[in-house]
Structures are given as C-alpha cells and as structure tokens.
C-alpha cells in the first residue's frame, strides 16, 4: 500500500512553462508567413463604396489592380483635385491604361493569363466619366473581366 501512498499529496506541482517559447514561435511563424507588407502606397483618396451582393475575390495571383480617386491633400498642390488613376506607385493617364494592363497580364504565368480579373478600386466620390474612359480602354485591349471592388455593407450609405 505504501507504494501508492508515497506520492506527495497536497501541494500542486508547478506548471511547466518550458514549451511556452515553442508555442510563441509557432504563432510567430504563422503571422510572419501570412503578413503581406503593403507594396504600393496610395497617393489618392480610396474609400470604396458599400455593396451587399458581393462575391469574394479569392485568388490573388490573377488580379490586376487599378486605383482611381482624387489625389490626397498633400499631393493636391502638385496634381490638382481632379480624379487620377494610380497603378503601382505612379499616376498614369487614361491612354496608358491599356498598355499597363497588357504588361501586367504578360507578367502572370501563362496558364493564368486568360483568367485575369481587373479589380477597379474606385473612390466612391469619383465621377463616372473617368471610369467610363477606363472601361473603354479595357475593352480595347480585350480585358473584359472586371470587378468593382467594394466593402461589404449597406448600399444606401453610399448616397450620403
């Protein structure tokens, strides 16, 4: 009997924290791998409109982004207040959209080139005139699959 009784009873053994660094490292690696540093810094206002009937843009490898909006306050002295098109880190003119899209598609792997979607990230206060011009340019280069990128939410909030 004494064989079973000689275990110390009463005081609990301390919890071992030796595996804590391992757990923290695991989490660390997870967040390190999923983090994407923002590649382009936007020089325009870019508050997207809300929409409720949205579909997710799942595969990021086949998306070409085009940002449109009014230049930010600090850039307005140089670039004025009219809406501008920004891709990567620079402003481009409407006429350059086609060639930009073609070269961006050309950089994608060949298997994906047919599946490329153009994501239009447009500020909700932008005018449709510029967007119509951009759509016309996209039609010229036969990049027909587009996505009006939006936030998910109440659409009637767009009108305020």
């Amino acid at each position, binding site marked *: 009997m004494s064989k079973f009784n000689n275990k110390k009873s009463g005081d609990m053994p301390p919890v071992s924290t030796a595996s804590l660094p391992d757990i923290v490292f695991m989490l660390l690696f997870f967040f390190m791998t*999923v983090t994407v540093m923002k590649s382009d810094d936007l020089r325009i206002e870019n508050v997207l409109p809300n929409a409720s009937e949205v579909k997710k*843009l799942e595969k990021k490898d086949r998306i070409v982004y085009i940002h449109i909006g009014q230049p930010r306050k600090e850039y307005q002295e140089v670039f004025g207040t009219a809406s501008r098109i920004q891709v990567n880190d620079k402003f481009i003119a409407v006429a350059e959209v086609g060639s930009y899209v073609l070269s961006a598609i050309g950089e994608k792997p060949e298997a994906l080139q047919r599946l490329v979607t153009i994501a239009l990230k447009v500020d909700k206060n932008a005018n449709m005139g510029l967007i119509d011009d951009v759509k016309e340019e996209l039609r010229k280069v036969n990049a027909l699959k587009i*996505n009006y990128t939006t936030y998910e939410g109440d659409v009637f909030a767009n009108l305020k």
Partner: protein
Amino acid sequence: MSKRLKSPEVHAGSMADIAFLLLIFFLVTTTIETDSGLDRMLPKKNPDPPKPFNERNVLRIAINGENQLLLEDNPIGIEDIKSKAIAFLDNGGDAKSCNYCKGANDPTSSDNPLEAIISLSNTRETSYGTYITVQNELVGAYNELRNRESQRLYKVSFTDMHAHYLDANTPTETKNALREKVKTIQKMYPLNLLEAKIK
C-alpha cells in the same frame, strides 16, 4: 585549463520575450484581407450585330449628373429600383414561354426573362457611389429571382450554391455536381445587364 574549454551555457530565458515582441509586431501589422466586389463582364469591342429586340423587352435606367434616377423617363427613388426590376424580369408577358415566372403577365412589359434586358446609362458627372448602388440593386434583383427558383428546385439558395461552387476548397466531384445546377438557374434568369447605352 579544463575550465576554459567548457563554453558557458547560453541563457535562453529571454528568448520567449523576444519572440513575444516579434509576435506582437506581426499581429499588429497583419491585415488578413480578402477583397470582395461586384463581378462584371464588359462587352466586346467589336460585337456581333445585335439581335433585334422588342422595345417592351428593355428596361432603361438612367442616372444623371445630380445622381437622380430615371426609369423609362419617369423619376424614381433608388429604393424602388429593385422591386421594379424584379417585376420587369419576372413578368412573363407572353404567358407560355416562361412557366416559372410569377409576374403580372403584363403584355406591355417583358416577354420572358431570357429576352429581358436592363440597360443602365450614366453621365460623366454621375458619382461612382450612386452607380454602384444601382448596380448592386440590379444584381440583387437577379439574385432574388434566382434564389427563389433555386429554393424551389434544389432547396438551397442560389447565392450559397454559387459561392460554394466558386470556393477553391470545394472538392472536384461536388463542383461538377453543382455546375449543372448553377448553369440551370443561370439559364432561367440570365444576367442581361447592359452598361452601354442602346440607341
């Protein structure tokens, strides 16, 4: 001599702290964002000559520079667009070609959903927010009708089914089974949404 050969043990107690610090940095900077939005196909640059269509099969919506809406030349509030679009699409005016339509069978409105076209035009001054709102309401109208038919035929909503179909994690067999259903519903209410003006 023998004492110098033995290298001192590295103190690893602070490793956890350093790792924590890094962890918190990455936690704060991470944004796991998936974009979402409204998918649309632009019309081809040199389209085939358009099929002749009947005037009653076209619903014209125009947005002016002050973001006001016209539906067939009558002013309309943006909240009413969805119900009007549903009534138009689901009309089934010729009474026989669309046996699943539940509309009013008004002979002056669209014949059936296959021929019904919604044409959305805008001026250069229209704001993008308004434009997206109208687009969203029109897609909402199509989705509502598709959901209704999908519930009737397959007891699931079309939007769920479609999202499941597009999801990259869905196994291929399920996808193939879903494709038929999705195609069937899309054929019943094809998305005839014109962005360009028609004369």
